[in-house]
């Protein structure tokens, strides 16, 4: 026997179906206005998961594009300046060539010497160029003008380019705690070293000096701050254990800074549990300074080595250390190795009373060597420049691909959405039209 069907069942069923048709219609209308394939994760989990992944990739990629574009501009500005310097050095060499021929009089040589001094100043001012508030040739510190001239000596970030001596005097570091003994200290502390010993909490600070080894030992309670260390050292220099050994040091100039923290870092212990002393020096390693890196993440898979240093293959180096172009240090015989000082030396020599053409060759050769290493650096720089623009193109392409992928996953084709909407509309119209047909007639309509 077939199931008994009643009019109320039919109308109930009809109401349900018409509502479903309207729902589908509404969903499709939503889809063709938003163009979204789904509006909730629960509607399509698989696609949503992919969408989240692609979105994160797009955002990261945009960061890389921004970094690459920024680096490109940074390097471009650098390149323009290097071109200018290149031109200046070429001119300098031309001037020197004309000056050292025996035909020039002392007066003429003097004029050229003055010109040379002006030209070397313009090299320095070119190297102090800013790009968007950044001093591009400052290596890792682009916040301050890198080059300065003090007493006719060139300083790069406060370090003498020839000798490596710091304007700020002697300094050392125990881990991340940096101790500066002030500009008056100069080289007087160069043979000493410092140890920071850890005492139990609450112990009073203690400072001693062993003149035979030159070791300053500061003992501080656990949890002491850099200010505590600074005070202990100041007390030491100010009439304390250090005052007689280092009379040149001005206690008020001594300062202690923690790199990230205000807590003192204690000296590390060696295998036999003795603290390792940190030696004090007023000289910086110029080579390290010239080879400093400033890394930028441009999507090469940022990665860190086990020791906590950046894996250099995974980042892009945008640093331009000014002294890597100009040269630094001096030969064993005291010949300067940076172009600035050499030009100055040449100018001095041109003005010197015992000038000879042959005598000038040594400096001329040194300038020519310096120019060669400048060109080498320039070429290296060029390859970095092309690498970044290649990477940027690649990242732009990747962005296009990712956006397209996102489009495929998250959005519907406008035409498809419209066709679906029309189909749903037809279905809905049909449903309500049929409704009037199935609801209306009953046997009552045919009764007399």
């Amino acid at each position, binding site marked *: 026997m077939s*199931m008994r*069907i*009643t*009019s*109320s*069942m039919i109308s109930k069923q009809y109401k349900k179906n018409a509502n479903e048709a309207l729902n589908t219609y509404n969903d499709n209308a939503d889809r063709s206005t938003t163009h*979204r394939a789904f*509006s*909730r*994760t*629960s509607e399509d989990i698989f696609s*949503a*998961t992919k969408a*989240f*992944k692609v979105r*994160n990739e797009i*955002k*990261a990629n945009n*960061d890389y594009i*921004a970094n690459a574009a920024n*680096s490109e501009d940074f390097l471009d500005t650098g390149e323009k300046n290097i071109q200018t310097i290149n031109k200046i050095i070429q001119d300098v060499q031309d001037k020197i060539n004309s000056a050292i021929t025996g035909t020039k009089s002392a007066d003429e040589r003097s004029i050229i010497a003055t010109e040379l001094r002006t030209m070397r100043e313009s090299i320095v001012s070119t190297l102090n160029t800013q790009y968007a*508030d*950044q001093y591009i040739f400052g290596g*890792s*510190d*682009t*916040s301050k003008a890198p080059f300065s001239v003090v007493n006719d000596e060139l300083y790069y970030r*406060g*370090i003498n380019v020839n000798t490596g001596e710091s304007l700020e005097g002697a300094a*050392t*570091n125990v*881990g*991340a705690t*940096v101790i*500066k003994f002030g500009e008056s200290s100069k080289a007087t502390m160069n043979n000493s070293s410092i140890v920071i010993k850890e005492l139990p909490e609450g112990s009073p600070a203690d400072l001693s000096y062993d003149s035979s080894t030159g070791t300053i030992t500061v003992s501080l309670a656990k949890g002491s701050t850099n200010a505590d260390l600074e005070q202990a050292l100041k007390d030491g220099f100010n009439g304390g254990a250090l005052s007689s050994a280092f009379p040149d040091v001005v206690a008020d100039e001594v300062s202690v800074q923690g*790199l*990230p*923290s205000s*807590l003192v870092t204690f000296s590390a212990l060696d295998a036999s549990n003795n603290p390792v002393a940190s030696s004090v*020096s007023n*000289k*910086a390693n110029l080579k*390290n*300074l010239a080879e400093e890196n*400033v*890394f*930028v*993440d441009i999507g090469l898979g*940022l*990665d860190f080595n086990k020791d*906590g*240093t*950046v894996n250099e293959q995974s*980042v892009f180096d*945008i640093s331009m250390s000014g002294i890597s172009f100009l040269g630094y240090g001096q030969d064993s015989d005291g010949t300067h190795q940076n172009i600035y000082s050499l030009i100055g030396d040449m100018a001095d020599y041109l003005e010197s009373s015992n000038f000879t053409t042959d005598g000038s060759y040594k400096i001329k050769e040194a300038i020519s060597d310096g120019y060669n290493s400048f060109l080498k650096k320039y070429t290296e720089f060029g390859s970095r420049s092309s690498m970044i623009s290649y990477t940027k193109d690649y990242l732009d392409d990747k962005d296009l691909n990712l956006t397209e992928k996102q489009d495929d996953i*998250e959005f519907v084709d406008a035409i498809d959405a419209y066709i679906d909407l029309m189909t749903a509309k037809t279905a809905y119209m049909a449903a309500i039209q049929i409704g009037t047909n199935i609801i209306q007639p*009953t*046997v*009552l309509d045919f*009764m007399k």
Partner: protein
Amino acid sequence: MATSTFAGYYVARSGVVAARSNLQITGQNITNMNTEGYTRQSVVNSSIPSVGNNMRYSDTSTIKVGQGVSCDSVIRNRDETLDNRYRAESPKTESFDLETEIKTDLENILDEIKNDNGIQDKIAGLIKQLQNLSTSPGDTNYESIVKNTALGIAKLFNQLSTSLQEVKDQQAEYFSMNVENANTIIKQIASLNEEIKRSQVTGADPLELEDTRDQLLDKLSEYCDIETSKVSVSVGSGKYVDELNVVLVGKDGTKYSLIDNDVYSKFNYTEVKDANGNITDYQLSLTKLNGSVRIATNGTTAFDDSVLNNGKFATYLSMLNDNGVYDTPPTTTNGIGYYQQRLDTLANYFADVLNKVNSSDSADATNYDKPFFTNGNGSTDSTGITAANISISQQWKDCQGSYITSSKVVTDATVDSTKRSDNILFMISEINKSRDFYTDTGEFIFQGNVKEYATDISDTLGLEITFSKSNYETSNTKLNTINDARLSVSSVDVNEESINMVMYNQSFQASSRFMTTMDELINQLINNMGLVGR
């Protein structure tokens, strides 16, 4: 033929009465066609046999003529088996429906598909700002943008946590309202039981009351698994009436009496709070009333979702109390609490990663001297950070200058190392690093980076919604099929009733016509017999 001369009148009369009764019931059916819960009624007719077939003065003639038609009773066209099946399926449907509803509420808060400005977006935003900072470390302008972005993340965590708690509070309120509703229904059923019983004692059939009661029982079955049974009770003079009992059936088949004719139990909703006034547990219990309830234990029985099987109550309990892997021991149901704690874990791990990287000593895991985030209660490290309390550390807030550790390594004391960016890059790489997430009790949750973890929250939730939705649809289809079968028996069809109307009208006319015929016959008998030749 030994029937009475006038017997025909009675036959005709019974026909007229029956036709009219049927017609009246037809009228009742038609007028209640659209009344919710109304059950189609019909008159039970039977033909009256000839009198006293087996009595001493019984009719001995071979021709037995019946005495007309009798209207025995009016009945409801209803199949109790279908009612029971409906009430067995209904709690399941309601369970899945409620679960879908609650989880969709959560999805509205946590899902980032349509509005791309949730946690994942904010974390990506922080990375972007760190990338900017890495090109210019120590720049206080960039640092203040990073600080504001971090503040935005903390605020978003707070806001999401508040919204989730709102959902929980709201559902708890609905739960308590539903408990009240169920109690009202139970009370109504009990009083209907008594009324129906009393009517039956007087011999009346309170069909409309029974309709109301069935409707209430359907409603009650939305809350929990119930079973009904009828007990025949003697009311004297050999007469029996039915008493209705309703029990709640637990997961293990244990029955808890809800209604025993006119006495009933009462559900109680309780919030268990800890010393700080925070709700730790939502409880449902059953108190028997009036002494005579056949309930397993005396006094109050407390339920948790391990006792209840299906229905709104079971779902409320599990959604409000179950925290999945965060429970001790872990459970498999992810209630609202699970998602709250997933978010807490994310906030905690995220804060801890950044706090560690920004600290001065990467080797010392307990050193948090420059935290980004704290729990906002004066703490200076990552302990106790949840989505609700995560905030920018006071030190960072107060810091005017540079706070973010851009480098931890000093290569040369005479040269300023603070402008290097390696630690900022390390921060970015740590945020993007895949790690294992664990609960406080050490249960594994997820492996991936913090953004993937956020995606996983959406995915888990989406999957559960899809699952409960499809369960709901299956169960609802089944429920509708049962209901259709029920309607097919009980609902009024206008065609049928119209035809009945015509039919009973005709039958009324026929019976009346029969009476006229009888009248003519007796007239012939009385007035015209023996008058031939007069």
